[in-house]
């Protein structure tokens, strides 16, 4: 920041969480889209698909507690608009906006207006129950408004510490959600189960790729006959894939490096990011399966949680 200003710890915290919640809103909306799409074209067991998608988002237990057995219609509303679901699109967007208000002075007027507008429009759109019929339109509005925010951030924010904290929030959340999406379905990616006759027709693979917005990119990179091994490689290790774990971790490391340079002293968070990269991102796909996909993902999720607390401590988010 200019003129000898140093950012408040609270501001860093607000920027970080603003972007985590924005990313979370986008992920939840994408998961709804995936479930909806699969339910239209693929599945004869709708209930199961929805429950499994909510499991991906870590929302299944809370959902059952509140909704009992009526699944399809309720799950759409639970994921999009329920105020009792802290990760619903509406909860996430309003949390993002609260944080944006808190850090209003660190944002450009254009970014603030984009977030405020997203909140106003999404809240209005989600003020009534969403039916299957108007779901596509609702999802389109959500993703359009979030894209506008990201465009405003990209186009108007200075590339300084403010931006670094925003990126940390985005990539921690993104890495976490990619890891969880893999974790819930890791067994369908195990080579032994899919040795013969696999193709992208496999509905489980389809769900995974769509959940991570990776279907088109995957096809571009591997063609359409590839299988579980390639999917795993793509989502975990591929450096060109913006939602892969490797990509997210390298972004975390870069942003932490910049912050450490500005801080002019050693920060443990940067060291931790380097460790995650060195310990887990140098794997080959073979080595990864040998290590155990499930164990691997569990370790990543735990290291991300640890990294997040280290960031909060290093940059005095709370005290």
């Amino acid at each position, binding site marked *: 920041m200019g*003129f*000898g*200003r*140093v*950012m*408040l*710890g*609270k*501001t*860093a915290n607000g920027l970080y969480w603003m972007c985590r919640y924005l990313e979370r809103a986008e992920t939840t909306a994408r998961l709804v889209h995936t479930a909806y799409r699969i339910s239209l074209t693929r599945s004869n067991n709708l209930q199961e698909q929805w429950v499994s998608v909510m499991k991906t988002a870590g929302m299944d237990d809370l959902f059952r507690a509140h909704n009992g057995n009526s699944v399809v219609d309720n799950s759409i509303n639970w994921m999009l608009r329920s105020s009792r679901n802290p990760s619903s699109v509406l909860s996430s967007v309003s949390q993002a906006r*609260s944080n944006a*208000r*808190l850090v*209003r*002075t660190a944002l450009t*007027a254009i970014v*603030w*207006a984009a977030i*405020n*507008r997203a909140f*106003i429009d999404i809240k209005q759109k989600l003020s009534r129950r969403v039916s299957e019929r108007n779901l596509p339109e609702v999802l389109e509005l959500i993703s359009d408004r979030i894209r506008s925010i990201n465009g405003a951030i990209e186009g108007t924010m200075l590339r300084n*510490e403010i931006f670094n904290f925003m990126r940390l929030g985005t990539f921690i959340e993104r890495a976490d959600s990619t890891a969880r999406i893999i974790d819930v379905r890791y067994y369908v990616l195990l080579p032994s189960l899919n040795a013969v006759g696999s193709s992208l027709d496999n509905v489980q693979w389809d769900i995974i790729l769509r959940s991570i917005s990776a279907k088109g990119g995957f096809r571009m990179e591997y063609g359409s006959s590839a299988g579980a091994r390639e999917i795993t490689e793509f989502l975990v290790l591929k450096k060109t894939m913006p939602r892969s774990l490797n990509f997210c971790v390298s972004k975390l490391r870069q942003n932490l490096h910049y*912050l450490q340079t500005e*801080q002019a002293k050693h920060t443990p968070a940067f060291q931790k990011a380097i460790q995650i990269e060195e310990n887990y991102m140098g794997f080959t796909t073979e080595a990864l399966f040998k290590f155990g996909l499930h164990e691997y993902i569990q370790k990543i999720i735990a290291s991300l949680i640890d990294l997040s607390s280290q960031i909060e401590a290093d*940059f*005095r988010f709370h*005290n």
Partner: protein
Amino acid sequence: MDRTVFFDEMNTDGFQVRKPYENYNDWLSKQTAKELSRKNRQAEELFRLAGITFNVYGRSEAKERLIPFDIIPRIISGSEWNRLCRGLRQRVGAINAFLYDIYHSQEIIKAGRIPRQMVSNNKAFLPQMLRHTPPGSIYTHISGIDLVRTGNDDFYVLEDNVRTPSGVSYMLENRETMLHMFPELFTKNKVQPVENYPSDLLRTLISSAPDGSDGTPTVAVLTPGIYNSAYYEHAFLADHMGVELVEASDLSVVDGNVAMRTIRGYKKIDVLYRRVDDAYLDPLNFKPDSQLGLPGLFDIYKSGRITIANAPGTGIADDKSIYSFMPEIIEFYTGEPMLLKNVPTWRCSDTDSLHYVLSNLSNLVVKEVHGSGGYGMLVGPAASKKELAQFEAKLRAKPDNYIAQPTLSLSTVPTLAKSGLAPRHVDLRPFVLMAPDKIKITSGGLTRVALKKGSLVVNSSQGGGTKDTWVLEE
């Protein structure tokens, strides 16, 4: 109530347009009603998207609301403005001198111009401030003086706000909105700019830093937080001054200084522009359960290591019972007669006055001495029999709590109502900045307008709106 003829600032007697409005009126007469209401909706949309909101107290859930904005400007000529400015400078200068005196040798009481109990029994008097001299002897860095107009040459001060006056962000945003929507108007009318307010404020705050602050003093804005009714304004001012917006949870006492927690540890603050009331500033010295302040802040202030703007204890000067002594106060400290008029005021603590007020209740406006925001006030002519009776009981129970004033015929300005243009009552809050070396007044202010037909209550919490205020070049 008699059918009163109100002074309309645009159309004096219904057919002649007053001079400051001539140019604007030429433009206005060419606009269709449909176009005007389209522009009005567009303005509302701009405010909504920019998130220019205030929170309403007393609701179950803290809700953000928009203050209605009216697109018809309120226009003041350069010469009218200059006259007002002379009065404002005199008044704010005298208020600051009064505060210094009250917290030091109390000459004005010794001279018998103000009864001692007006000060010593006053809730807003802070004995802890006695014998303390704030940096540069400035108490009222920021003042908002509420003015009303009743005729061509008749301006009255309705009240002085020298604690934490708000509304300046609306003055600035209203102008931005007008520039955006009606650029053509600003080429035809020479309107004095208001946009320098944030840099003037920053300069005022920096020049009031304690002696011995090394380098450029660090300024911060202290807000109670995002649920405060004026949070938008707190963020707006910090943003436009380029300083940090802090809450109590960001502050700590480090090496005997007030410091804020940054990503690189604690950083000393030299000047705190606080938007938190006196009572909440420091739980060790004032309200012990305050979550909005910093324990020990007041002790550091008294040791001279930080400037608090406005100074604690300024409330003694804008209290509604002190208001009635303003002619004496101004004369005592400036040696001149008061330039801006005061509204005649009955202090209900006085038995004769109370008697008069009770027998004329339906013609008077009664206000709580410590009230603000239009709460707890009675507008006699508009009140029902039941309301009058209730207020009479309150007055008898606690006469000291109230003052009464005649119902003023507030001027009107054309305003866009559902049925088209209609006169609505307005007031004006100019903002005065006081630094040790000079007083600076932004050419403009916040015009508040009572949107309900016939209503005289302009407060945003009571359904009032705002207008852009134009001060023309001379």
